[in-house]
């Protein structure tokens, strides 16, 4: 089907939800949606379905009047209400297609709030412009993380021994794993944003409006004095590292998100080099175990065709990992537009000239399904929306990415690092072997695999 205008079954969503997710990674922060009530409600619902956690965010509740006269009054009133009632340390405002189109200037409005004394002493309002008609949820995430860096980082002129790690869009479990790896290496880091202990909070019998996790304001301020930054993801993390470099002269290195063996190797080496610390034996041993499983099971991976879809910073290293496992990533789709992504994918896919790859406009689930019908695959990897294709075509399916609305685990078990690689291997093998068992003829039904 030739298409010019239409998107069918999108492989992306809009900027503001990314900004909301990022803002939840600041301790004591209330994300604020400057737009209609529905935006905030949809984002909260989607994040709640993905995390099975309460997600708190406020809205400017635009009316027709606001849309004619501008949303300044709504935002000023919101800031006042939020500080007096919900008492956060930070309000992180993001715009919407509506407030962008009517031309609200968040910088000017938040400045006015400060000048008018609506922001109490020791409290902060940060902002990010996140028009829904540009980029995707990944862009919104990157914009809010950049906002954190730009608006909090301070340079005292004296560098510290600290390394900034800018987290691309990953799960709370992934952020926990990054911190754990750094701690094993004895590297002093500040990770931001950090949604661990926010969106994977324990049951305590209380509804904690501001759970205990999240990067603190002091930590964010200190990022300006760090000796360097590692940005995990060229799309969702790098813009914040660039902003820190510009504002506070913090040099940075951009890495692929550490998903799979090779990308994790690069991350560990970069961290070791930046921190001036050797890689501890425990990490080396963990890596060894991953390679061991890869070797033990190589026959089950080799030559298997895979279709995958999702967000750029995750898809890039995942594609590389599949190739490292001997699999053939034949169809790859991401709704998020971006030249960096295309360029990096071309590099990774040099080993796989057969692969179909598309991102941006009309790179959606409908296209992926068409490709799969033309050239069937043995495995599908992507978010929950892949389940329709997996069912129609009877393809083993590994859930990976955002959103996952029908399974748990993603917020508790990492996909990054060596333990993430191990988990991916286990999941991929699990579905492939289940399928083999299900389809096997009686005489070929194997006990030992």
């Amino acid at each position: 089907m030739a298409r010019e205008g239409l998107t069918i079954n999108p492989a992306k969503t809009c900027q503001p939800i990314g900004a909301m997710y990022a803002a939840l990674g600041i301790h004591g922060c209330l994300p604020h949606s400057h737009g209609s009530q529905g935006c905030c409600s949809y984002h909260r619902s989607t994040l709640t379905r993905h995390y099975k956690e309460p997600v708190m965010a406020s809205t400017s509740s635009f009316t027709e009047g606001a849309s004619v006269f501008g949303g300044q009054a709504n935002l000023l009133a919101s800031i006042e209400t939020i500080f007096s009632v919900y008492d956060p340390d930070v309000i992180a405002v993001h715009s919407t297609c509506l407030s962008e189109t009517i031309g609200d200037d968040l910088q000017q409005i938040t400045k006015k709030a400060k000048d008018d004394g609506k922001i109490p002493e020791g409290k902060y309002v940060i902002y990010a412009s996140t028009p829904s008609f540009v980029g995707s949820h990944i862009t919104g995430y990157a914009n809010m993380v950049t906002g954190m860096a730009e608006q909090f980082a301070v340079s005292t002129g004296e560098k510290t021994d600290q390394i900034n790690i800018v987290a691309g869009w990953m799960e709370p479990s992934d952020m926990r794993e990054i911190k754990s790896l750094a701690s094993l290496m004895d590297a002093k880091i500040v990770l931001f944003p950090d949604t661990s202990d926010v969106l994977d909070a324990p049951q305590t019998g209380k509804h904690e409006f501001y759970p205990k996790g999240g990067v603190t304001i002091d930590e964010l301020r200190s990022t300006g004095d760090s000796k360097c930054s590692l940005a995990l993801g060229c799309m969702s993390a790098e813009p914040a590292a660039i902003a820190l470099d510009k504002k506070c002269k913090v040099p940075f290195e951009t890495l692929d998100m550490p998903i799979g063996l090779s990308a994790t190797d690069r991350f560990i080496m970069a961290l070791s080099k930046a921190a001036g610390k050797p890689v501890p034996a425990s990490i080396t041993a963990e890596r060894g175990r991953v390679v061991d499983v890869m070797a033990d099971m190589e026959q089950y991976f080799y030559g298997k065709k895979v279709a995958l879809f999702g967000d750029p910073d995750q898809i890039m290293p995942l594609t590389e990992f599949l190739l490292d496992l001997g699999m053939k990533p034949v169809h790859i789709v991401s709704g998020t537009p971006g030249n960096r992504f295309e360029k990096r994918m071309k590099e990774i896919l040099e080993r796989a000239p057969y692969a179909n790859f598309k991102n941006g406009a009309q790179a959606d689930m409908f296209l992926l399904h068409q490709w799969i019908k033309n050239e069937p695959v043995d495995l599908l990897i992507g978010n929950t929306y892949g389940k329709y294709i997996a069912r129609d075509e009877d393809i083993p399916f590994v859930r990976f990415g955002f959103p996952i609305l029908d399974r748990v685990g993603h917020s508790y078990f990492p996909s990054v690092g060596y333990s993430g690689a191990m988990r991916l291997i286990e999941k991929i093998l699990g579905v492939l072997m289940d399928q083999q068992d299900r389809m096997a003829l009686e005489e070929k039904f194997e006990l030992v695999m």
Partner: protein
Amino acid sequence: MKGKEVMDTQNINLLEGREKQVYEKTAGGAEVEIACDKTSLSGSVSQRACVFCGSRVVLYPVADAIHIVHGPIGCAAYTWDIRGAVSSGPELHRLSFSTDLQEMDVIYGGEKKLYRSLVELIDQYQPNAAFIYSTCIIGLIGDDIDAVCKKVAREKGIPVLPVHSEGFKGTKKDGYKAACHALMKLIGQGSTEGISACSINILGEFNLAGEAWIIREYYEKMGIEVVATMTGDGRIDAIRRSHGASLNVVQCSGSMTTLAKDMEEKYGIPFIRVSYFGFEDMSKSLYDVAQHFPDRPDIMEKAKEIVRDEIRKYYPEMQKFKAALTGKKAAIYVGGAFKTFSLIKALRTIGMSVVLAGSQTGNKEDYKNLKEMCDEGTVIVDDSNPVELSKFILEKEADLLIGGVKERPIAFKLGVGFCDHNHERKIPLAGFIGMYYFAREVYESVMSPVWQFAPRKGGLR
């Protein structure tokens, strides 16, 4: 700073400006009128949605039409197959179509893109109609959606219906109205030949988990022809001829009363309000319909028979639940107020009392009725927020919360059982059998062994 005490959900103050939307029924208490139909306070963590959401939920279950969201990608992405409105045939409604407007479209207008998208879609899927939803920025960039729809309708020979659902142009209720207006354009276009004199339309039933099928079967057993269900398991042809029915039976009054009134005015079809939740209201909805056909006593006879048989079938089974649940307390926070009435009665059937009752979109009359129905000590809220809900659930020691997706994890964090009475219900809760399922679900959640590890009010036990 009062913040500390405010954020301790066990000891919070009400949001300033919210005093009039919260009411506690006390003996000899002042008769305060609940302020409702208000837009939410700017800056509140409201549980409400927008105009687009209202239109989308009402029209979504029409399964042989394409639903195309005109705007940036988000509105289509967030409403993609999130409502379990099942279809017995085509499933076009479960796909997500968007014009995915980009910056250039916002600057130069999205009409051409919409036109192309519609043509491509109609050629590909051959639907019986198309609904085009305007989102926020369409209202600002000034696309003439009506003109595009007319043009495509003419070229493709199917109804192409604009739904004016710009998010900021009112509340969710205005979205319901916009959806009803779109439906009104279809109604009257089909032939009413062969429709029985004893016929109805089922309005405001969305066939979540197959509920419309249950209800339809009762009416058909009574000897009544169901012309159209709007919109559960909905079909364009049925809707087009629905003006041939002699009665509109309206559930979910918030969303569909507009349509019932318009049909009454234009086609002289009377309507009644019903509810299918709980034995009491379910029975009444069969009797009320039977009463509309007084010259057919057999219909009433049949209704009585159904009620007798069904209650005989499920009532004994429910006694086990009732024995365990008697004395337990429930909190209700749902979209429409009318549903709250039924839930209060249904909960009483299984021995439970209601300590908190509220809705996102109730009107003055709803809240008046609610006050009359509730026991003393019950808190009534309009357009509530998580802080308030947590406060009252803990204060009133509720054992169960009935709500929607955003409320579920709050209940679980507090160590309280939960029942989804919204989009995400997995089993039918309507009808006699639905009451049984409801009782079972409440029982299973309230009595779950998990709560022994998830103590209320904090701390390890």
